[in-house]
């Protein structure tokens, strides 16, 4: 009976998700037009590219976060990790390490920290919330006590990955955001290891019976998440001339919001990275729109919280209706 239910489900889920992504795309365009009518300066190329360029790193990190949430876990340490990785990379660059080494260090350190958390979660079976909450405070406290919150300046010009324009016109952060999203989406949909994430998050027991190793899948997901966090840290570190050696406040919340609003079900097993990237763009757009319609930026976080709340409740109600039908 459950098998028949599971067999009928994916097609339905697919339809629902397609509509979620279409809905997000419409929201992104609709909001741009609406705010543009109120204040045409919002649609200036400069503002739109600021919205995309300045926030591409959130979308890249949200790709990894989406995988983690689809696998039935959560990570609230990623914001702190991005701050740490940016500082590591910047410190190496300032101290004369080759630029490639500075870049690579962020990626390697990201994978190492996240894989360690994955091992603790998967093999020692400690809930992700406890492990990542603990890691959040370790990383945050560690970073401030090591650096004393000093800013890193005098970064070499070649370090600024986010400034690169491919073929002289395509900004690298946006290209990376789109590329990472497409590759991750294809991998998650068509490869065995990608499908395993859905299996583990959807029904761990069934996945085990199908011969999928749950611990191994979770460690893989967290390691990948660390890789994306490393890439996000590089974009974050290189879009300004300085690196503030502190943890960007509430970054993890923005990243989780992007995943959840993008249609990744918090109950695990459902969601796509295309949705989370669209949601990341939408959230950045909303933050910018508030400024252009003369709402105080102090309300941004309340809007973000309300957005998560509404999406989560809608997701649960929709699932319940699907289960009932």
């Amino acid at each position, binding site marked *: 009976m459950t098998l028949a239910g599971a067999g009928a489900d994916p097609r339905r889920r697919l339809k629902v998700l397609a509509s979620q992504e279409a809905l997000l795309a419409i929201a992104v365009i609709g909001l741009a037009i609406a705010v543009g009518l109120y204040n045409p300066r919002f649609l200036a190329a400069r503002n739109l590219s600021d919205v995309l360029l300045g926030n591409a790193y959130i979308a890249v990190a949200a790709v990894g976060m989406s995988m983690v949430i689809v696998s039935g876990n959560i990570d609230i340490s990623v914001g702190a990790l991005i701050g740490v990785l940016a500082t590591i990379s910047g410190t190496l660059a300032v101290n004369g390490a080759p630029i490639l080494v500075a870049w690579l260090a962020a990626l390697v350190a990201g994978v190492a920290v996240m894989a360690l958390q994955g091992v603790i979660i998967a093999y020692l079976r400690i809930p992700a919330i406890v492990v990542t909450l603990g890691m959040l*405070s370790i990383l945050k406290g560690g970073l401030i006590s090591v650096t004393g919150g000093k800013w890193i300046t005098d970064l070499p010009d070649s370090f600024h990955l986010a400034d690169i324009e491919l073929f002289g016109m395509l900004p690298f952060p946006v290209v990376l955001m789109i590329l990472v999203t497409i590759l991750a989406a294809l991998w998650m949909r068509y490869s065995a290891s990608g499908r395993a994430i859905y299996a583990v998050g959807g029904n761990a027991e069934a996945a085990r019976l199908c011969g999928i190793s749950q611990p191994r899948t979770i460690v893989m997901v967290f390691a990948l998440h660390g890789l994306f966090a490393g890439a996000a840290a590089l974009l974050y570190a290189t879009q300004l001339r300085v690196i503030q050696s502190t943890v960007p406040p509430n970054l993890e919340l923005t990243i989780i919001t992007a995943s959840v609003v993008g249609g990744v079900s918090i109950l695990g097993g459902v969601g796509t990275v295309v949705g989370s990237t669209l949601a990341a763009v939408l959230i950045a757009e909303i933050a910018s729109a508030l400024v252009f319609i003369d709402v105080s930026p102090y309300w941004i976080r309340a809007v973000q919280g309300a957005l998560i709340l509404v999406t989560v409740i809608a997701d649960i109600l929709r699932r319940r209706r699907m289960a009932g039908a």
Partner: protein
Amino acid sequence: MSAMSEIPLPQIAKRVMPWWLLRHETMLAVILLIALIGLGALNNRFLTLDNLLNQGRLTTEVGLIALPMTFIIITGGIDLSVGSIVGLCAILLGYSWKTFGFPLPLAICFSLSVGAAAGFVNGLVITKVKVPPLIMTIATLALYRGLAEGISQARSVRGYPEWFYFIGQENLFGVPAQLWLLLIAIVATAIVLDRTTFGRTLYAIGNNETAARFSGLPVDRVKLIVYTLSGLMAGLSACVLVSRVTTTRSDMGIGYELDVIAAVVLGGTSIFGGVGTIWGTVVGLAMIQLLKNGLALTGVKGDATIVVIGTVLILSTLVASSLQRRREGV
């Protein structure tokens, strides 16, 4: 016989828990004692009555929230929004007094009821819509903090009347005033948890929610009450905090959820639900505050102490869960 073998978990749990709990708390108390002596030997300002009472003063705000959090975690839930509720209540206390012109006692009641309402909303959505507590309270962590920031627009409120500072700064019978408040709350929650049907229901929910439901226990109502209580206590904590630091800012209570959860988990309450005591939480609170204070006195900066708390949180969960698994394996 076969009926019994179908429900092995609660059977084992019943047999094992008291033994394990006793061990965990004795262990913790011994560690606390060693830490006290060790820190006292390292620094002669540590083991003075003045210092210890002052540490009690500082731990009250987190302590008031840790008590209902123990209830919540025993039911298998979690509340990450408590720090944001503290911020929201603090802002509303100052805002309603200064801008709406409420008399201060009314402003205090208003702020407390907003805290309770914030917790009630958490509980309502968790029980009615069945949103997992973790996600619900992550959402309201952002929402409540956002409301605090939006309402305050980064303006602080100060200049409260003199009597308001009593609870945060004065002594009553030689003991910090707010410590009496914490003491009353500890005794009350300990009695509720240990001696009332309500308290026992929390364990039943945490051990097996479905079984609790089928036994006719009012699971949803009990959960609603504990989340509301958590919000109310966060509001109370906000009032004590404002009274102690004499000003109101929207970033108050940031990171409280970490300290609170660390204290509860360190005190032996299982994050999986069904296990835990108020006594354990009190020892956990004392451990964390003394650790912070001891490290600060030996010259470690404030930011490094949160590294220690994070490590302690992960390690204590590791030890607790491996002990539990070993017992269940026997």
